[in-house]
């Protein structure tokens, strides 16, 4: 059990009788008892740098951490190769997060007769809340250099039931020909997003992802086009010596990072980024950038017995996402991160064609037949789009504001808005739209408003281990994807919220 070194903190924890009181006490004590932050495990053990050197708060990178990563996990001091380390050094860190959370979401529920016990009289929409202690998955981060200017990162990651997959596996050649402008990596990796989703500290279901990075229109079949997911491919990264200017171009399999060439095989996409930082003196460094993500993904999977065959995807259709990124610092304590997105999928994706292979997540196929059950839309020969089909188009924006009181205490607030500007079921569409109603989709179908706020406090950090105490609240709203209204028979909005208290363990 951790021994809090600040007596006020220990006393406060023993005396707090309610969650609210405990949180207020935590905030107060955190503000008054902050200790110097020390190093994080994997790289800090190697370089003797505190975690605060690379992170605003672990794992969010600051400018130095970004440069360290761009240099292939090297500080470029001619001591980066493993040969200079103690032979017992092994660059590995594990992270797991036990949480208490309360999740509340709108649902359809049966209503019962008050006069005839056990007789269902209909349905109603109710908010169902559940709470309890839960677990995150377990991550093993191992990365660093194999030799000077040859780096790697491997991240076996599990879900809460300990079912593992490889979240990240990549090897990289850094500073080819002695130039920071020439770096190549191959494998499965996070896209070069300036605002990294893999490094965000949000832990709730909806606040633990960036909606902008994952948004697709309701009933859209494009399994790809998800900037937040790690992808398989090859990436070129270049940056200036001081990392003020950064560019990248990645050629990716359009299969959303799935291995074994199962989904969307035979199609590729490109992801391009550019950003430029500007020295603004007392205001710190401001960074502006842009990205473009464009490519093709399959809509037609050849079949056997009517069942789509994994890896056989053809009939590629196009999609793109473009946007701007900004990282604005207002002195050392406050920064605002902004990501915008304008996205479009081909009309075929909009009608649900894309990943026809319905998997169980373990390599098996759920779609079976005949009679075909669980089969998703497949653009087999002769298929035509319904009248009124059009390419879905949308715009989105993410704002993330951070107040770093000290390297040990950070406050973060996010607001995200995703808004459709053109639905896939347009004028002239006469079928049932995704809400279950006939005719064109409502213009606001799928729109998202997401709010997230958190406090993250590290009562201590050492170069061997770390612990973060986190309190977080998320409010999520999406039009037309919620329970079916018993009155109209059409889908209503999804409204959910989540309160979370977590102990983020890092060793």
């Amino acid at each position, binding site marked *: 059990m951790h021994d809090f070194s600040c007596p006020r903190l220990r006393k406060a924890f023993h005396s707090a009788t309610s969650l609210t009181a405990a949180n207020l006490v935590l905030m107060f004590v955190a503000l008054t008892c902050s200790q110097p932050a*020390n190093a994080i495990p994997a790289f800090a053990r190697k370089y*003797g*740098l*505190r975690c*605060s050197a690379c992170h605003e708060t672990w794992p969010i990178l600051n400018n*130095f951490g970004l440069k360290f990563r761009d240099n292939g996990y090297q500080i470029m*001091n*001619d*001591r980066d190769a493993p040969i200079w380390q103690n032979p017992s050094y092994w660059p590995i860190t594990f992270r797991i997060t036990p949480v208490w959370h309360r999740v509340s979401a709108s649902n359809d529920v049966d209503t019962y007769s008050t006069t005839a016990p056990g007789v269902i009289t209909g349905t109603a929409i109710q908010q169902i809340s559940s709470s309890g202690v839960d677990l995150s998955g377990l991550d093993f981060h191992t990365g660093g250099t194999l030799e000077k200017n040859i780096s790697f990162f491997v991240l076996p990651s599990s879900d809460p039931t300990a079912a593992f997959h490889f979240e990240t596996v990549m090897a990289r050649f850094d500073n080819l020909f002695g130039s920071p402008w020439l770096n190549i990596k191959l494998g499965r990796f996070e896209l070069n997003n300036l605002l990294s989703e893999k490094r965000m500290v949000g832990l709730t279901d909806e606040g633990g992802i960036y909606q902008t990075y994952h948004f697709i229109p309701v009933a859209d079949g494009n399994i790809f086009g998800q900037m937040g997911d790690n992808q398989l491919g090859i990436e070129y990264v270049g940056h200036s010596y001081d990392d003020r200017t950064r560019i990248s171009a990645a050629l990716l399999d359009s299969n959303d990072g799935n291995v074994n060439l199962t989904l969307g095989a035979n199609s590729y996409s490109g992801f391009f980024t550019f950003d430029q930082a500007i020295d603004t003196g007392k205001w710190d460094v401001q960074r502006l950038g842009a990205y473009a993500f464009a490519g093709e993904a399959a809509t037609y999977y050849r079949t056997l017995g009517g069942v789509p065959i994994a890896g056989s995807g053809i009939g590629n259709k196009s999609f793109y996402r473009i946007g701007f990124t900004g990282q604005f610092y207002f002195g050392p304590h406050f920064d605002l991160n902004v990501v915008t997105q304008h996205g479009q999928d081909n009309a075929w994706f909009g009608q649900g064609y894309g990943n026809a292979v319905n998997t169980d997540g373990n390599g098996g196929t759920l779609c079976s037949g005949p009679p075909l059950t669980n089969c998703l839309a497949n653009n087999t020969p002769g298929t035509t789009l319904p009248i009124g089909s059009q390419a879905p188009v949308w715009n989105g924006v993410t704002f993330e504001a951070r107040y770093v009181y000290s390297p040990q205490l950070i406050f973060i607030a996010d607001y995200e808005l995703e808004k459709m500007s053109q639905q896939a079921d347009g004028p002239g569409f006469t079928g049932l739209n995704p809400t279950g109603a006939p005719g064109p989709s409502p213009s606001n179908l799928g729109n998202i408003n997401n709010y997230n706020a958190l406090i993250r406090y590290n009562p201590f950090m050492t170069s061997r281990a770390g612990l973060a105490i986190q309190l977080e609240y998320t409010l999520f709203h999406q039009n037309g994807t919620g329970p079916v209204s018993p009155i109209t028979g059409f889908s209503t909005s999804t409204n959910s919220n989540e309160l979370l208290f977590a102990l983020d363990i890092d060793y």
Partner: protein
Amino acid sequence: MRTRLHKWFLLLGAAAFFALPLTSRAQLTTEDIASRDNMESHVAGYTGHVQDAAYDYRRYCVGCHGDMGDANGEVAQWLLPPMWPKPRNFQLGVFKCRSTPTGTLPTDDDLFNAITRGFDRSAMPIWNQFTKYQRANLVAYVKHFSPRFVTEKPGTPISIPPEPEVTPERIKAGREVFARVQCWKCHGVQGMANGPSASTLQDDLGFPIAAFNFTDGTRPKCGDTDEDIYRIFMTGLDGTPMPSFADNIKPDEAWDLVFYLRTFMQQPSKAKEIAKTLNLKPVSANP
């Protein structure tokens, strides 16, 4: 009786002799350091202030250099010389990389450049992602740890004559200088840091220190331009066994030595190209 007193005097004298250097390393108090909170730097177009660097120092520097700037940060104990040099003790006010003569304080520009450049073969990273304003503040912060910056002024930067054209004659002359001032004693006759004194080198605090190996492709700690190399042996690296040769080498000879040293280094240079045609033999270790 007289003999016994004599022995006691000798003993006390010896103790005083060995204790003297330690007095200069005496730990300063927080109050003493705080008394210099008004220290400023003037560099890169900014006036740096101590207070404005406190946050950055705590975030980036304190792990090695310590809260008091005494090189006693938590990770300092894990930095084992000579492979990982100990962090700089700012309280002593002694700095390797200067543009000023040996024994004098560095300029604000020198400290600014040191932060910007970092130190190869050490745990000191390249901090060039900081804004110039941040670096100017950190220079003031580094200075405020040492009372020397109150009682003394920085030295006047040495003047470096324009770099002449490299010629075979100059490279040969540089070889003679290399032999005459006995660079080889530490750096080895082929610049491989394996001279007869190399294994015995210690810095002023008694930690083992390695001579620079010109041949392994690494960069000199205080910069890798020709001008930087010139400056290194004309100012010396204070706190290390590398002395200043300003009294032993004329400016023109210093450029000759730069060109000769370039022939050892992996980095491409005109001197290296010319040297291939000269069939130069290493200097003799037994002249």
